[in-house]
């Protein structure tokens, strides 16, 4: 009995501080935001709290908010797809074809930029993509006589910057699932006469689904919530739902609307995750 109560105290003392901190700084704020999204006004000045659905209604009645949400989802889709197309082959080569120290070194090189400041990396693209910037000059070196390439303030610039920011996630998650594939499985397929294309489509890709799915979620969710990347690389064309949410807090001080839009965004994320979960579960349980 005494041991049991000592055990409980130990658990409480060890986990208490960390979770108290998380409660105060993550879960309480999210609750406060949820509360205010159902209020008529934000916490400015003295006025009685008044329940209101008008900020949620705003989303469903104002077409431009829906358009921006759609634009963000589209952006998330494009970035995720490009990360798969670029990242999967790279992860495959790294995981299955390169061995030893080289593999470790290359892997580290790929994840390293991830931990340099995201803002700084977006900033670096504004310098690369500007007219007469590095890209412009490089292209003209190869093909002289082309008109000036100016990607400043364009959708393409936003996509390039975001793919650059999130590509390491896809390579990392695909690498982990590809690395785990048993070589003898592939040898068995080969000895039974399977072509390399068949092996890729029927064995490797299905076994890599958990990695692809994890990478996609890790990329899609932050991309649809991004705001400074579209703002810096897209300029006036970079308005997405993320920048609108940001403006509710930094410019127009309409916190309840910002909160309502945030929770609609979270709800959409959860719906997408729920829709994807049968696929995920099926593949997770087989591996």
């Amino acid at each position, binding site marked *: 009995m005494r041991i049991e109560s000592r*055990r409980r105290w*130990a*658990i409480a*003392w*060890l*986990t208490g*501080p*960390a*979770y108290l*901190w*998380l409660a105060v*700084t*993550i879960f309480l*704020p*999210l609750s*406060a*935001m949820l509360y*205010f999204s159902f209020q008529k006004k*934000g*916490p400015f000045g003295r006025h009685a709290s008044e329940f209101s659905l008008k900020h949620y209604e705003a989303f469903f009645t104002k077409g431009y908010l829906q358009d921006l949400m759609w634009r963000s989802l589209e952006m998330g889709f494009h970035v995720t797809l490009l990360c798969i197309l*670029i*990242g999967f*082959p*790279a992860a*495959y*080569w790294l995981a299955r*074809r390169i061995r030893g120290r080289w593999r470790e070194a*290359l*892997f*580290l*090189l*790929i994840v*390293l*930029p991830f*931990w*340099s*400041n995201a*803002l*700084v*990396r977006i*900033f*670096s693209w504004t310098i*690369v993509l*500007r007219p007469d*910037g*590095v890209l412009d000059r490089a292209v003209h070196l190869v093909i002289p006589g082309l008109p000036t390439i100016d990607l400043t303030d364009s959708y393409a610039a936003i996509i390039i910057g975001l793919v*650059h920011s999130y*590509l*390491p996630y896809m*390579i990392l998650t695909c690498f982990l699932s590809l690395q785990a594939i048993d070589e003898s499985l592939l040898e068995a397929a080969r000895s039974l006469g399977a072509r390399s294309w068949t092996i890729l489509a029927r064995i490797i890709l299905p076994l890599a689904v958990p990695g692809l799915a994890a990478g996609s979620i890790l990329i899609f*969710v*932050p991309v649809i*919530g*991004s705001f*400074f990347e579209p703002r810096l690389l897209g300029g006036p064309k970079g308005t997405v739902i*993320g920048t609108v949410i940001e403006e*509710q*807090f930094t410019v127009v001080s309409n*916190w309840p609307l910002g909160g309502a839009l*945030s929770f609609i965004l979270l709800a959409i994320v959860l719906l997408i995750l729920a829709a994807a979960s049968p696929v995920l579960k099926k593949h997770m349980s087989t591996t």
Partner: protein
Amino acid sequence: MNQARWMVLASEGAGRLWLFLVLLFLYLPILVLAVMGLNDSVHYTLPFTFTTRWYEDLAGNERLLQASVNSVAVALANTLIATTLGTMAALAFARYRFRGRTALQLLLFPPITIPWLIIGTSMLVLFFWTGIGRGLHAMLLGHVALSLPYVIIVVGARLASIGPELGEAAASLGATPFQSLVRVQLPVMAPGIVAAALFAFAVSFDQFVISYFLAPPGVSVLPVEIFSAIRKGFTPEVNAISTIMIVVSMTALLLFARLSKFGGER
């Protein structure tokens, strides 16, 4: 036979070329950024003329210096708090099986997966509402929250690879729980703890979104200062300070990599 060998060689070449292009894509902008910080032209024009004047200008830029001091101070405090609290929680998860353990571990995912935009604005709402307010203390509150899950996961991974046997051996040899913790377990956990600390430092030092919403006018940290410089029109001075930031956080990650799973011992 010959054709088959050619196919293998071609695909080998294509795979390596692809990896090379991916690395080029990842590093090219960072290299351009660093090089332009050493170029004399304010308008980032070539030809390249070497200068260190942007770095010298940094030394006289009070705002950036103050922001750097703030950044380092917040990151160090964050490292200390997050590593301590996170290690404690990781110890509890490794040592005890208790009701609610899985639930507590699942609670680590929202801070990692919910977009920072939403977490940052929520913090702004609560801190303003309760009178905690904005400022370095508010940023510290936020950074620790973001670092904790990573610390718990990194230290937890180390503890899982050690297993409970060492602690049991120490106990059976008559060590008190405290002796066992300080003399046996903490030394073995040390690489994991140091790795987690470096990770926590990088999380805070690189954090922009949370700091952006919690920075009152006049008080800022490096990323916030860089953001406002980019929006107001910038000079290669921003490249110089950005390069320094990248070097600092990449060094932290390289040390982290040595200490965690990439190291020689496994």
